[in-house]
């Protein structure tokens, strides 16, 4: 018995069976009328000018933080990426060990979620727009650096050697031989990171680092659903326009799409436009920085740490580490399975409906848009805090991301085989399953493996709200200023994420190799 590719993508959806069975047990009976009010408010958002003004202000702050955090992370990532490339060090110094060292060091900031960075910096530096920007720039910069150094090292070095043999200097040779093939990928990936930065900036806001997220949280907690939806719809509009802009530019400049990182496209006549866009970005960034009153020097004014609690390290070591790590891993698996399996299942069920395609797009956009802790808070109206609640919130958010990707993948596989099945009288759903899912199963699951690694990093976010795993302990340690516990928690997170990254890399390679 060997399942065929179309089944692979549906297998993770089996996790829904135990989750659905558990739901009655964790429901606390009430709260459905609140959910009803929330749903009704979606079609009836507040149009009060005072509310709209405050929402717009919050949105502008969030966008500014996202843009600045993204720009700094790209800059950091480019520099660190080049510095952690083996090819570059071999060319400049004849040995690649500094690259190896830097790579290992960069794994630490990458492994820690931007929210953790935000909360840590917040308690060290106090509330300040620079904190949110740094919280995004640090982990993103390390991620971009890894991407760039991986790409650099994967490029063939023959052209580089040829230029060196012809007497070119090391820097000139690097720029000429490696710059052009690297550019399209970096720009394509950079666009994708900007979308992520907007989501991260919203999330940081929920935890009080400024911007729209905070308004969303306050309106949700005070049950002002009409005002909440004004913010959500506006955020949705901004997010969808940003995604459309990024994918439009990607197509216009013929950059590779996300599922096709191995394709290489030359930068053609559009390089002039690229330069213009880059030149326009700089004044924009400076203007945003001024408007937000960002002061980078504030990052240097550290507040004195409060004294540690008595008991110190022994108390920290006595925490139930095994249970917390176990819960975190289980949360990751359940949320990843919900998202990876849920997207194709929903597509199969809903897509053949008359408005099915649009309904799915809307649902997935909402999933991407909603910061998982807000979903968790909403779920807490009807469910008790539990691992399942956290998994549902995290799964819904990632469903939005994977669903969009799946739809792009379905469109990219071409309609021919599905049409052939339809012409022989097969139903729409079976034709979709056989005709399209067969072709995209491998690449979709490979992306799912990568996503599971991201989900592991994100468990901290919902864990804090839904009270499960390392996240719930982190919340307590943060509010108690117990820096010994915090240090251990961070180390545990970093270790887990690095292990997860390695596992998901292996799974992805195995899937794509065959």
């Amino acid at each position, binding site marked *: *018995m*060997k*399942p*065929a*590719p*179309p*089944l692979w993508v549906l297998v993770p959806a089996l996790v829904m069976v135990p989750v659905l069975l558990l739901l009655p047990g964790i429901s606390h009976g009430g709260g459905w009328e609140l959910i009803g009010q929330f749903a009704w408010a979606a079609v009836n958002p507040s149009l009060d000018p005072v509310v709209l003004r405050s929402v717009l202000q919050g949105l502008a702050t969030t966008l500014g933080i996202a843009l600045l955090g993204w720009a700094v992370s790209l800059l950091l990532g480019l520099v660190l990426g080049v510095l952690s490339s083996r090819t570059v060090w071999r060319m400049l110094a004849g040995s690649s060990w500094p690259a190896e060292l830097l790579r290992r060091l960069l794994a630490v900031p990458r492994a820690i979620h931007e929210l953790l960075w935000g909360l840590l910096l917040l308690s060290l530096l106090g509330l300040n727009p620079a904190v949110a920007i740094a919280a995004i720039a640090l982990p993103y910069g390390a991620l971009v650096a890894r991407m760039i150094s991986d790409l650099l090292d994967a490029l063939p070095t023959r052209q580089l050697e040829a230029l060196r043999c012809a007497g070119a200097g090391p820097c000139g040779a690097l720029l000429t031989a490696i710059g052009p093939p690297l550019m399209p990928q970096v720009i394509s990936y950079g666009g994708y990171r900007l979308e992520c930065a907007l989501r991260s900036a919203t999330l940081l806001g929920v935890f009080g680092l400024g911007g729209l997220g905070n308004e969303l949280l306050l309106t949700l907690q005070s049950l002002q659903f009409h005002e909440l939806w004004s913010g959500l719809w506006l955020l949705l509009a901004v997010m969808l326009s940003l995604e459309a802009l990024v994918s439009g530019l990607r197509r216009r400049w013929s950059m590779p799409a996300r599922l096709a990182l191995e394709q290489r496209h030359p930068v053609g006549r559009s390089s002039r436009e690229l330069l213009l866009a880059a030149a326009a970005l700089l004044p924009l960034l400076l203007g945003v920085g001024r408007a937000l009153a960002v002061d980078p020097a504030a990052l240097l004014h550290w507040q004195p740490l409060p004294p540690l609690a008595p008991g110190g390290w022994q108390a920290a070591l006595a925490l139930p580490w095994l249970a917390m790590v176990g819960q975190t891993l289980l949360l990751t698996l359940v949320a990843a399975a919900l998202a990876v399996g849920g997207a194709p299942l929903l597509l199969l069920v809903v897509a053949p409906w008359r408005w099915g395609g649009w309904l799915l797009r809307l649902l997935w956009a909402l999933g991407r848009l909603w910061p998982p802790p807000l979903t968790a808070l909403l779920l807490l109206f009807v469910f008790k805090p539990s691992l399942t609640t956290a998994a549902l919130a995290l799964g819904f958010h990632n469903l939005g991301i994977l669903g969009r990707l799946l739809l792009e993948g379905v469109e990219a596989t071409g309609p*021919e*085989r599905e*049409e*052939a*099945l*339809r*012409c*022989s*009288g*097969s*139903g*729409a759903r*079976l*034709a979709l*399953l*056989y*005709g399209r899912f*067969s*072709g995209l*199963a491998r690449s979709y699951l490979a992306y799912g493996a990568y996503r599971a690694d991201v989900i592991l990093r994100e468990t901290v976010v919902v864990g804090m709200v839904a009270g499960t795993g390392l996240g719930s302990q982190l919340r307590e340690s943060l509010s108690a200023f117990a820096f010994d516990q915090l240090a251990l928690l961070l180390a545990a997170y970093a270790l887990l994420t690095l292990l997860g990254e390695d596992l998901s890399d292996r799974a992805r390679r195995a899937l794509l190799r065959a």
Partner: protein
Amino acid sequence: MLSLRDVSVRGRGQPRLDRVCLDLTAGERVALIGPSGAGKSSLLAVANGQLPPDGGQVFWFGESQARSGSRRRRRQQTRIGMLWQELRLIEELSVQQNINAARLAHWGWPRALLNLLVPVDTAACAALLERLDLNPDLLAQPVAALSGGQRQRVALARLLRQDPLLVLADEPLASLDPRLAQELLGLLLQQANAPRALLMSLHRPDLLQHFQRVVGLRAGRVVFDLAPAELEAEQLAALYSGCEPCP
């Protein structure tokens, strides 16, 4: 079997099909010829229900086309088989799963899912492969591992597994070497005895004598519809050249 009444399909500038009338009865084998862009593929796409005509009517087995997506339409389509030029096999699935895909219209979800998990209806699939001179051991192979000739036959096996009454074929011989083309044509003609019928587009004047009728299509119009014996060399030359054939 198939009846097209004044079927038109709009295109950019000139129509892709212009008031085409065509009738096929059981047991008939009809060749469709014409220069590239004459509308052969559009005609076949209308005939298999893929392309809704902008004007005129299509009748299948004496009934008018049911509404797209309806149960009746699906039942009608199960009786029409199509052999695609690029075969449209599902590369990632095994030969057996591909052949069985022709039964999806009759199967419910449980059986369709089971087909993706374990070999289903092995005897029927093996018999089809043997009938097409293929080794039944191929059933478990993925289609991606087959040679060009083997794939051609697997596509034909899928068609036979569907067991249609009307077979439509869109230039199935185009990319085949002469020996393979001759073989495939033989297989297609052989299974198109009454009550079945065959409508096939092709570019090979030397093979026309195997058909009962030859329909010439040019700029979306039927120019002639004759027995191959009545077809004259000038008419054929005119079909592919610049001028209209003289009546």
